[in-house]
């Protein structure tokens, strides 16, 4: 029996050959357990060694292999060929990012913005090591755990039309990670992050299209993170107007914040 073949239409961009991207079509042998990344690996190994793309873990954890598959941002290692009824399957680099080569995008803008929100636990004063770790209850972990599942795959940036129109926008994953640390009972850096989030190109640029949460492979729900940050920063701002005399103290480690 002849092997079943599937056609992939892959976007190519090779700056040394011309200023514009184009498509190449490849025939790939089909197996039921094959994902789009397997097909790309087949192309690179057997058909065209010059095809360039990023990948690493093959198990939906590293966040390297995000690409547009039939116009939707997906992790190609978790996107099975059997999902698609019609051919060719179109593979393109992630939308809204500059393309360096073929399917490889330039992620430096995302990495710069990620640094700006200080995605780490900030303490006003570090306690001595001898005092041990900052303890948390399971409930305190639950408050931020969902937002800590982000793998920086940038699919949400590709799905976000606001980021497409306004590259200044901090974007879904960065704000979700800022919220992850804001909700952490060990953290005391909320006011530092508020300065970065509260600007026009921060949380207020988001119009709640909501597609970032739909495409997120880890169910982080960045759209919810952004809207909840809008609510909590506004509430704090309003509270400080009626009660400007003191800022509410941060709860001590090991206690549930109000």
């Amino acid at each position, binding site marked *: 029996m002849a092997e079943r073949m599937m056609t992939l239409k892959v976007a190519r*961009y090779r*700056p040394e050959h011309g*200023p*514009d*991207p184009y498509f190449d079509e490849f025939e790939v042998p089909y197996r039921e357990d094959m994902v789009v990344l397997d097909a790309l690996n087949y192309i690179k190994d057997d058909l065209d060694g010059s095809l360039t793309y990023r990948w690493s873990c093959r198990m939906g954890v590293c966040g390297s292999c995000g690409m547009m598959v039939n*116009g939707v941002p997906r992790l190609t290692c978790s996107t099975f060929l059997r999902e698609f009824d019609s051919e060719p399957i179109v593979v393109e680099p992630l*939308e809204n990012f*500059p*393309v*360096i080569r073929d399917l490889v995008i*330039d992620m*430096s*803008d995302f990495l710069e913005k990620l640094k700006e929100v200080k995605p780490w636990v900030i303490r006003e004063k570090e306690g001595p090591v001898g005092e041990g770790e900052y303890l948390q209850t399971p*409930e305190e972990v*639950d408050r931020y755990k969902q937002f800590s599942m982000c793998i920086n795959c940038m699919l949400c940036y590709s799905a976000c*039309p606001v980021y*497409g*129109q306004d*590259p*200044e926008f901090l974007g879904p994953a960065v704000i979700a990670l800022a919220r992850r640390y804001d909700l952490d009972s060990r953290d005391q850096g909320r006011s530092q992050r508020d300065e970065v989030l509260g600007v026009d190109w921060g949380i207020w640029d988001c*119009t*709640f*299209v*909501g*597609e970032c*949460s*739909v495409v997120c492979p880890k169910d982080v*729900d960045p*759209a*919810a993170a952004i*809207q*909840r940050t809008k*609510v909590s920063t506004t509430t704090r701002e309003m509270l400080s107007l009626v009660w400007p005399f003191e800022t509410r103290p941060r709860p001590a480690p090991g206690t549930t914040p109000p």
Partner: protein
Amino acid sequence: MRAEQQHRYPVYAKRPSRTWWVRTGPYRRFALREATAVFAGAFSVMLLLLLFALSRGRMAYEGFLRWLQLPAIVALSGVILVATVYHAATWFRLTSHILVVRLGRRVVPRSVVSFGLVLLWLALSAAVAYLTIWFAR
């Protein structure tokens, strides 16, 4: 403003699309949600016109009521009703994404929150309708 992103190598950058909002189903639904806000605004304007007519006395008020009965205005009111209900319904769904309701250690599911909001809305509407009818007697 930030400085324009500098690239160390040649890159291909697509121009932002002006018609992105018709590209996919979810984007079209988003555009519809935002566009129907105009009709919600139109309803507020009509309410303001009513108050304005009321403030100018009985003649003006009765004139306004006659204007409301013009076929074109009745049709417009129908469109405003449908659009405003759609707009409100989208926000009941979206609010459940923003509002986290906890019962003890458990988080109430989104569908329950949305449904609860709709129930609250119906209850308030019924209360307003009841008061209006009661005062009109």
